[in-house]
């Protein structure tokens, strides 16, 4: 119980560092959602385009060129948004790390000597250097990956349902099986 409180408390402290970047965070989330949706939309468009190619003399060129144009636009948009998102994520991550280190260093300058003497220097250094890195890697990158992951799964599910309900359920049942394959 007590441990949990400490963890919640720590999380709150951590969130304080991110707070400054909340607008960027919000933009990042919006961009992630958009990127995922667009990425998933492309295969649908491609599917439609291939559906227009049926056989000799039976190809709807007009529809295909419209679809291919649409695909081109979607791809261009996806890649721009993705690039922007990557940039913003980088910025948030590295700036949060910088801010934490800045604050930690100022703390060192006022720490009581008794604390510095009682704790191995290597330990304090590794908190400020590697733990902060780990934190940035784990929490921020982890968060962005988790978020895109969840959005991807959810959006895929919706898109699939829109195409065919029966097949969607077969996929949902078989997916856990295929997970063991992809590693």
């Amino acid at each position, binding site marked *: 119980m007590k441990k949990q409180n400490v963890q919640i408390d720590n999380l709150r402290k951590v969130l304080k560092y991110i707070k400054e970047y909340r607008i960027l965070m919000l933009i990042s989330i919006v961009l992630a959602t958009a990127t995922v949706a667009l990425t998933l939309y*492309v295969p649908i468009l491609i599917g439609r385009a291939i559906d227009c*190619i049926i056989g000799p003399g039976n*190809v709807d060129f007009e529809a295909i060129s419209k679809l291919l144009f649409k*695909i081109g636009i979607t791809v261009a948009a996806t*890649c721009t948004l993705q690039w922007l998102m990557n940039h913003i994520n*980088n910025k948030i991550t590295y*700036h949060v790390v910088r801010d934490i*280190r800045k604050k930690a*260093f100022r703390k060192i300058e006022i720490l009581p000597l008794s604390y510095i003497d009682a704790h191995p220097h290597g330990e304090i250094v590794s908190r*400020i250097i590697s733990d902060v890195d780990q934190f940035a890697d784990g929490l921020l990158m982890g968060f962005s990956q988790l978020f895109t992951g969840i959005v991807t799964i959810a959006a895929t599910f919706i898109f699939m349902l829109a195409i065919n309900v029966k097949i969607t359920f077969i996929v949902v049942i078989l997916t856990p099986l295929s997970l063991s394959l992809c590693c």
Partner: protein
Amino acid sequence: MRKLLIYLKDYRKESILGPLFKLLEASFELLVPIVIKSIVDTGIGQANKVYIVKMCLLLVLLGVVGMISSITAQYFAAKAAVGFATKLRRALFKHIGQLSYTEIDTLGTSCMITRMTSDMNQVQSGVNLTLRLLLRSPFIVFGSMIMAFTVDTHAAFTFVVAVPALFAVVFAIMIASIPLYKKVQQRLDKVLNSTRENLTGVRVIRAFGLEEKEIAEFDKRNEELTATQKFVGGISALMNPLTYVIINLAIIWLIYIGAFRVSTGLLTQGAVLALYNYMSQILVELIKFANLIISITKAFASANRISAVFDIKSSLVEKDVMPEKLHTEYAVEFRNVGLRYKNAQDESLTNINFSVRHGEVVGIIGGTGSGKSSLVNLIPRFYDATYGEVLVNGINVKDYPLIVLRDKIGIVPQKAVLFKGSIRDNMRWGKKDATDEEIMEAITIAQAGEIVAQKKEGLDFIIEQGGKNLSGGQRQRFTIARALVKKPEILILDDSASALDFATDAALRKALREMPGKHTIFIVSQRTSSIQHADIILVLDDGQIVGMGKHEELLEKCDVYREIYDSQFKKEAK
């Protein structure tokens, strides 16, 4: 890195079978689009239900066989990687054990732990990934291209353009970013140094009021680091969008020419679908490949760090031949010995000369930093003397095999370290087959008998890690007992009775003197009371012997000794 690969030698079979099975699995994966093509063209096109079912079963079969190959590959790769890491870890552990204190001091404990744990894991997963995926990704990429040619030569030329373009982008980004990552590491090291300096030099910085300057310096380095990180991040951020665009442009092109070729009857709808599937497969593999390269780069860096530890040769050159037995009257002799620690400016010991007869008790006294511990650390050859000779039983310590030398010596270090386990386990460090009687004898001499008697488990009492469930004095007595179990010829107590009260300390010294057999005993202490009854007392000051003799002589002749005695005697008298 190459040097480390010898540890993979015993896993040659696994190292070949792993990738082989992975390639087998990849081959099955490459067949999937072809099967789907037949389903679309023959099955759906001609409304042949039986054919569709058959082909679907074939897909399932391909999937199952693929999975089995994949698991087999996983098994071999994991076996090789884990086995490799186990051997490497064992070798590194052994190597570290052979290093002298000089190298251990320079390396640092935390650094060695990192090499043993996180670097080792990084290398292990690097080996695993290499065995499984390094060949697979290029195989799938080129395999897809070749399969595309079997579908349609004309359309396959799209692949011939797209694949090199993709590789160019991936490698350009990698080549641009790897040196930058090194730069990031350098900048990070600067930030690290700033932090460390501010901890080690905290007193100086505060005394001179330099905090603001240090903060400004740190901020500058921190900003530089962030800027570099953002710059590299910016380059890496191009990878996904660029590869995505290239692949999709290729797909648009494939559909475009596919449409024409289907219209003229040169291609089927299923063929276009198969080409599209191959192109998509390439994208997936490329992303995996890029991640793989990053992991492997990290593993290489770790491997180099481990390798660097292996490259450190122990400064102790060990003789493996037992020296001839000499019968001298002296147990320990120092002949004009000096010691300067590596990277230290001043000598810690200067021109030390003294001789100790068998069975004598030697007291060593002096203030903090006077070189007391440095002196006794030379006897078991924890460090090598910078000049001069240290002799044990008339033979230079450098001429002994270490195990023979250290077997003669029982040393109780300043810091009482006990290990997790029963009292009995801890006592058996010096003598593996010590009986309970021998252990109890040692414990009694060390004045720890009552501690054991108080524990209802007796010798089975479990000591926690670092001896946390014992008091400082109890720990010290057990570490003394541990050294006594092997009945050493030379016993060194390096300020190891500091936490004992005077009565216990006196009882301990009396018991040590009455030990059967001839034991030469060194007692290092800051307390005159602990050493005043010694046969010879060495008084150290700033690495030099400033007085040598018995208590009474020294009180008369040696100022330093008298000062120490007076200060403590008066204190005790209060």
